[in-house]
């Protein structure tokens, strides 16, 4: 009951005309960004973040969350109409979305994607509402040792579950943490890592600079390289009859969508997992459980609904650890966390006590964002078809300008703009050699928390390193972290053993 009271108060905030307007602008912008091939929620949030200074902090976060939601919906649009995923999270949607479009059922595929996204989004927001307070209550007991162990756990999930090259993942985590140490020492205040004696480094390297570099400049350079010719846009329009038929069809997929929502939510909470694996897993399981698995990959409506419910649910899932524990579940939520810190709203359990209006306003705005996203999505289909025909050079040039100006705006230092270009080029090159970018961004955001909690614990415990494992909660986190860390090694050993046991050629 208490929960409903909080939520009711939250709706009083999120249903204020200004916040409704912000949600509508956010989801529309997000839908367009998500629909553009190559740009997803993380790119949208990175590029738009500096512009959000125009609204008060709490509204800015609502705006960014609305963009995040919109982009998750929008990803499906280019997957279906172009056959190119709007973002990696919508890869699985192309498997059946594209064949549907080629069979002249683009409208139906878009309706299925939008409705499934709505179901996934709504179920996951309800789960979010239920889990947020208990999780925040548990997190209240956390001291520096637990915080350190939790951050370490978040990083080791990338090593154990990320699926990328382990050595490269560790390099990117360390690089992000080292870059987060640039500036002034947290405890003594001494300057450190002031490269080439550039005064710009005294204030550290902002997560925004790295994010705009990698997800703005780097992403566009990558897309310039990979997109050789203009893709063909499949025309689509939606009539009321089609909408009615689509909703009736979707109604038959409750089992697939509910499963996808739960799966997406819980997979989304893990830092290394997130929306892309959630969508792929949901697709795989839907195919496995389907009565007609042979239709998958040839235009099955279930094949569109399953990944779309999961990726939207995962985006909400990744918000949960960010808001309650201060540990983001994805690069996008890492940027949201960075943005919140920048505005003086430090995510974590204390936020629920100190700023309940903001927290519940934000949670309730997720409900409204979800509703508006599905309505705007369906209403603006012709506009998306038109926007997808926009020449790529126009989009690129505008994104570049936004990156440069947006990177300059927060600090008003040209030093940061140079760093953006540098990070963009380096990120682009590293990405080509399969260096994962998500751990780098997460490490830069979480670096100060990790170092502070590590040093605070050691100072308080007079250098006793065992303090991290002796405390029950942090000890548990450390044990799980150790397990994730050795997981790739165990897999390697298993592979070697199998090779040795196989008959010699």
């Amino acid at each position, binding site marked *: 009951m208490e929960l409903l009271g909080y939520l009711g108060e939250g709706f009083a905030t999120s249903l204020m005309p200004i916040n409704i307007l912000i949600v509508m602008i956010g989801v529309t912008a997000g839908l367009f960004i998500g629909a553009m091939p190559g740009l997803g929620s993380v790119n949208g949030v990175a590029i738009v973040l500096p512009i959000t200074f125009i609204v008060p902090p709490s509204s800015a976060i609502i705006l960014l969350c609305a963009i995040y939601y919109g982009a998750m919906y929008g990803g499906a649009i280019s997957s279906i109409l172009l056959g190119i995923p709007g973002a990696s999270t919508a890869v699985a949607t192309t498997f059946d979305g594209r064949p549907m479009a080629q069979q002249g059922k683009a409208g139906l595929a878009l309706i299925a994607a939008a409705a499934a996204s709505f179901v996934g989004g709504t179920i996951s927001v309800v789960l979010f509402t239920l889990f947020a307070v208990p999780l925040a209550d548990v997190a209240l007991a956390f001291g520096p040792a637990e915080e350190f162990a939790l951050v370490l756990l978040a990083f080791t999930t990338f090593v154990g579950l990320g699926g990328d090259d382990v050595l490269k993942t560790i390099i990117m985590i360390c690089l992000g943490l080292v870059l987060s140490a640039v500036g002034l*020492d947290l405890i003594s205040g001494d300057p450190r890592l002031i490269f080439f004696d550039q005064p710009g480094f005294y204030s550290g390297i902002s997560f925004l600079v790295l994010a705009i570099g990698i997800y703005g400049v780097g992403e566009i350079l990558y897309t310039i390289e990979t997109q050789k010719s203009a893709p063909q846009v499949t025309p689509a329009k939606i009539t009321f009859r089609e909408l009615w038929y689509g909703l009736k069809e979707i109604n038959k997929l409750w089992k697939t969508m509910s499963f996808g929502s739960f799966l997406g939510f819980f997979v989304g909470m893990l830092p290394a997992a997130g929306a892309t694996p959630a969508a792929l897993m949901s697709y795989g399981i839907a195919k496995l459980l389907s009565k007609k698995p042979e239709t998958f990959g040839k235009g099955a409506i279930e094949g569109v609904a399953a990944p779309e419910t999961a990726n939207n649910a995962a985006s909400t899932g990744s918000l949960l650890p960010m808001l309650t524990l201060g540990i983001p579940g994805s690069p996008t939520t890492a940027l949201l966390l960075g943005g919140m810190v920048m505005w003086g709203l430090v995510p974590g359990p204390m936020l629920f006590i100190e700023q309940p209006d903001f927290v519940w306003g934000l949670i309730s705005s997720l409900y409204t964002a979800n509703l508006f996203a599905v309505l705007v999505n369906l209403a603006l289909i012709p506009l998306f078809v038109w926007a997808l025909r926009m020449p790529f050079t126009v989009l690129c040039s505008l994104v570049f300008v936004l990156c440069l100006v947006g990177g300059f705006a927060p600090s008003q230092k040209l030093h940061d703009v140079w760093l953006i270009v540098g990070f963009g080029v380096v990120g682009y090159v590293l990405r080509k050699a399969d260096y994962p970018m998500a751990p780098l961004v997460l490490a830069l955001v979480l670096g100060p928390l990790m170092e502070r909690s590590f040093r605070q614990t050691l100072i308080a415990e007079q250098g006793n390193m065992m303090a991290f494992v002796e405390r029950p909660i942090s000890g548990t986190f450390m044990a799980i972290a150790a397990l994730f860390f050795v997981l790739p090694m165990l897999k390697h050993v298993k592979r070697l053993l199998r090779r040795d046991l196989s008959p010699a050629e």
Partner: protein
Amino acid sequence: MITGARGKLRACLGGKVETIMLTADRVLAAGIMVLSVYFMWHASALPIGWNGMTGGPGGGAFPFWLSGIMFLCAGGIVLRSFKDSAPFAKDDTPFFDPDTLRSVVVVTLALTATVAALPFAGAYIAIPMFLLWYLKIYGKHGWVLTGALTICTPVFLFFFFEVTLKILLPKGWTEPWFFPLYARFF
């Protein structure tokens, strides 16, 4: 490992050329090793061991030891690259796509030139010039589209950043041109 390296060397001497991706992977890892040493050298300006004054690790410890881990991992990638089972060992694709490499280089140079021009020519010359180049010369668009975006973008930037957010963009020697606008809007 050594046997693997010798084997590879023999293969190279025998005329077998290793893949470009593998070389690129090795070069990048070597670059990261150099970068790690540079970071460690910088970090060691502060105490990297136990700090007797404040207790706990010194200010340089966190970046120093993390750079050390980076160095070891990058070293691992270099060593691994000499094994036949190394990632990219059988990847024959070029590191940069030859068809589009020119576009990436040209765009990067244009972007760099734009940033370099910001302090003296200002945002309101550098950005329209970038857009003009990108849309007209690189993108081969018509004058209507190029003109509309080249003019509208700086106008939007001025009203959004300068008038609304009160964030002044760099103007270089064009600063005096804006005095009447400042008088009008501030």
